[in-house]
């Protein structure tokens, strides 16, 4: 009983505090702008490279190894800089549909993009893991030999024997399993939107010709590559 009473009092204090805070907020109406004038804007205007890097890592994993949120957030570590720059542009130009990344990309200037892309390229954390192991052998076969009967080329012809990619061709090694599955399954719905030329067209037939279980197999396999 005594304990409940104590909590009651603290609740009253909370309410007082809230009222006071609310009053404060009302007094400094348009608080965001006012705060901006007071120097918080230094951070608000995008801040420095480190702040932006932390911002990326919040979603893409603290060592950029990818992260499983509500959506799978892809690994950026070791990614090809040219691919990162292309995709950020594709988000802005709505060639690649992703509401979150469109907003994110809009706040990045070209020199920041170049600095971030180069930083991520040099990171090399272990793959995040977590893919099913059942179909690794099939995945390896698809990656190395393709599926001639289904018009699927060997992945390594473009993405490299080690899956590291090159130039505008992305690194697949260590990529989050769920992310690769999602991308290959919905290739044409997310990428290559609109009428502008988009390099994603190269992958469209391959993604289309892979069955669900083949996609899962190859996604599992590349997720294990270091």
């Amino acid at each position: 009983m005594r304990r409940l009473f104590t909590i009651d009092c603290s609740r009253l204090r909370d309410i007082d505090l809230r009222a006071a805070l609310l009053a404060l907020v009302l007094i400094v109406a348009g608080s965001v702008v006012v705060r901006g004038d007071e120097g918080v804007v230094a951070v608000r205007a995008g801040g420095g490279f480190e702040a932006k890097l932390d911002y990326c890592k919040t979603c893409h994993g603290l060592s950029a190894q990818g992260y499983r949120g509500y959506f799978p957030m892809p690994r950026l570590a070791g990614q090809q800089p040219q691919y990162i720059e292309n995709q950020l542009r594709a988000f802005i130009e709505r060639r690649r549909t992703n509401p979150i990344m469109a907003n994110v990309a809009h706040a990045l200037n070209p020199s920041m993009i170049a600095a971030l892309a180069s930083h991520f390229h040099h990171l090399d954390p272990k793959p995040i893991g977590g893919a099913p192991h059942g179909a690794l052998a099939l995945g390896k076969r698809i990656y190395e030999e393709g599926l001639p009967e289904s018009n699927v080329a060997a992945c390594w012809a473009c993405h490299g024997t080690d899956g590291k990619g090159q130039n505008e061709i992305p690194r697949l090694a260590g990529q989050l399993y769920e992310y690769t599955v999602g991308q290959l399954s919905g290739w044409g719905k997310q990428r290559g939107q609109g009428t502008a030329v988009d390099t994603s067209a190269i992958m469209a037939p391959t993604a289309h010709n892979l069955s669900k279980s083949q996609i899962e197999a190859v996604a599992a396999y590349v997720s294990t590559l270091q």
Partner: protein
Amino acid sequence: MKRIAWKIALLVLGVSVAPVVAGEAVVRNCTWCHGTSAQGYMVAPRLAGQRSLYLETQIRAFHDHVRDNPFSKQYMWSAVAALAPDAAHDLAAYFATLPARPANDGNRSLAASGRSIYMEGIPDANIVACYACHGPNAEGVRDIPRLGGLAYSYLKARLEQWGQGYHSVAGSPMPLVARPLGPAEIDALASYLSFVR
């Protein structure tokens, strides 16, 4: 045939009642603070409808003294000290199945700006979109908590505590997430989320 149907009926009944009956006393220990239907009460957050994996992870974090904000330390460390992992698992699964009611106790006039931060973040200020991890309806997934409908004061306190150096579980991105949040953004987010069903 009739006998089998009876057996199935009994089995279903047994399975549905078993966790409640088995852990009735333990459940009462939780609802004493978290409210009789686990909708949250005062400083104790709502457990009803919370992700079971999240509840389990947090119980372990209390147990191992990793989640260290003042109320956790004061109440939850001792509350879970004698709770075996199996019991924690069952409790988490039980509370996850209870229907959740939104607290609706935030500032309504801030809900729209809170929603915009939740869905889009503020990229210029390095504030990420909560939506990416907590889902379109703040429902959470796996060990990522449901935020929709939690109490304003709880949400606000949690968002403030990340910036004050308290911990939850190892490897959580939340300290990084909360760093660029100012009082106005926290107020708006906590308000918005309190109304989400």
